[in-house]
């Protein structure tokens, strides 16, 4: 009780607390004004999937269903079909007649990418896919397959633009988290490093 009272009426501690909040008022704000300013993503950020094509416009996917088997979240459904001589979709014997990914189930681990024998399925850095309806988050071929003219045969990061067009403008991030220095694995790693440095001081 005596101790508790001592703590309650410790005016020095109260003033020190007020000094802390006053100092913080002038700190640089780490806030990124998100919709108008976007944070730079890591080069291999795992975002929305994409089905790629070969240089001649043929689909890379051969409908082997390896991605669907390896998927830990059971998010991928592939139904393969035979190519016919008059309508060849892919260079192999088969192609994916249906290819659907439930982005709500997906955990963005990238195993499908690893498993794919033809590098057909890749993860792009696109991450803005929120929607009001669950159904519209099941992405089918109409949205997964790249249009024949868009950076054919290249991984998203190797394309001239670098980032798919609808990722939006990536402005310079103005924050005390320096995204370029010590930027190796993921952005989370970068933030962690800065924070540890701040704590050590």
């Amino acid at each position, binding site marked *: 009780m005596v101790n508790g009272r001592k703590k309650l009426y410790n005016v020095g501690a109260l003033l020190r607390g007020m000094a802390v909040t*006053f100092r913080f008022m002038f700190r640089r704000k780490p*806030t990124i004004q998100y919709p108008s300013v976007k944070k730079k993503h890591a080069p291999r950020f795992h975002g929305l999937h994409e089905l790629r094509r070969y240089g001649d416009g043929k689909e890379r996917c051969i409908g082997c269903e390896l991605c669907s088997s390896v998927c830990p979240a059971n998010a991928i459904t592939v139904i393969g079909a035979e190519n016919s001589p008059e309508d060849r979709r892919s260079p192999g014997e088969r192609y994916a007649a249906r290819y659907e990914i439930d982005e709500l189930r997906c955990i963005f681990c990238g195993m499908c990418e690893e498993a794919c024998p033809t590098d057909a399925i890749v993860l792009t850095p696109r991450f803005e896919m929120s929607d009001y309806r669950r159904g519209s988050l099941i992405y089918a071929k109409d949205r997964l397959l790249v249009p024949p003219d868009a950076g054919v045969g290249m991984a998203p990061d190797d394309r001239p633009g670098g980032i798919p067009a609808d990722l939006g403008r990536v402005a310079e991030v103005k924050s005390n988290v320096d995204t370029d220095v010590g930027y190796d694995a993921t952005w989370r790693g970068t933030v962690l490093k800065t924070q540890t440095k701040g704590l050590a001081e």
Partner: protein
Amino acid sequence: MTSWWTPQASIWWVVLIKCAVLLFVVITTFAYAMLFERKIMGWMQIRPGPNRVGPWGLLQPAVDALKLILKEDLKPKTADPLIYWLAPFISLVTAFAVYAVIPFAQPGPGNVWAVGDVNAGILVILALTSIGVYGISLGGWASGSKYPLLGSVRSTAQLISYELAMAMSLIGVLILAGTTSLVGIVNGQVKLWYFIPQFVGFVIYVITAVAETNRAPFDLVEADAELVGGFNTEYSGLRFGLFFIAEYINMLTVACIATLLFLGGWNAIGGLTMIPGIVWFLVKVAFFMFVYIWLRATFPRIRYDRLMAFGWKVLLPVATLNLVVTALVVAVRG
């Protein structure tokens, strides 16, 4: 019907115009006090604060008001309709009424800077702010719901406890000034602001003023963590807004009182008399408002039993002692 423009009637016209101007100024100040509170709290929490509506978030108060006006006006089935509808107005009207006696600068000829120069101004203010408590306690009681009731019971207990210490701390100033007129008190501070001889009283006043306006860290009346929203839990839309306005206007009021009684009102700092008194007054009030926001951003809510213990066992005895010592000193020195 004889004439609207006899000298007698014109006095009323002047008062009416002053009231209208004052109402507008006070409401605008409230709106921007709220914006600045959110901004400053944001900065202290390393956030930018509201910045989406208008440049630098300056239109935020307008859209907030619009939102509150457009919201549905709810009333619980168990509420007492008349008192439930009335309570926010009690809070608001008393909060506004206080400004009728506050002088904002040396009134001078024609009493330009005050609506009414009452010779017992400080007593009027204390009386009106005490009536304002009825808004909170009746609103909580009439809601017919347990959390508002608890909030209003707390409010009543807290305000009774802290009002005593507050009045005690103010009497010290009244003894020094020898008047209860606010203009007289300010004019008594031309040489020395009363917060120096009455430092203890000043500190007690600042603490009790935070408690009187139900602001953090003494906002047990609203205590969101355990009472949902306290006395205003059941209120929605514009009626909630009225309570909200009343709270901020009360904040402004206590800042005005502190300025008038302790910080020399419109007296200039360091003889800088070329800057008009009204500016000094506003600067001092703004400083107090900042301190309130600062306190809110810094301290967590105090526990209820400690709030009571602090009020009765520390503030009241110290304030009484301060009063007795002041009275003795004034008596001995003539």
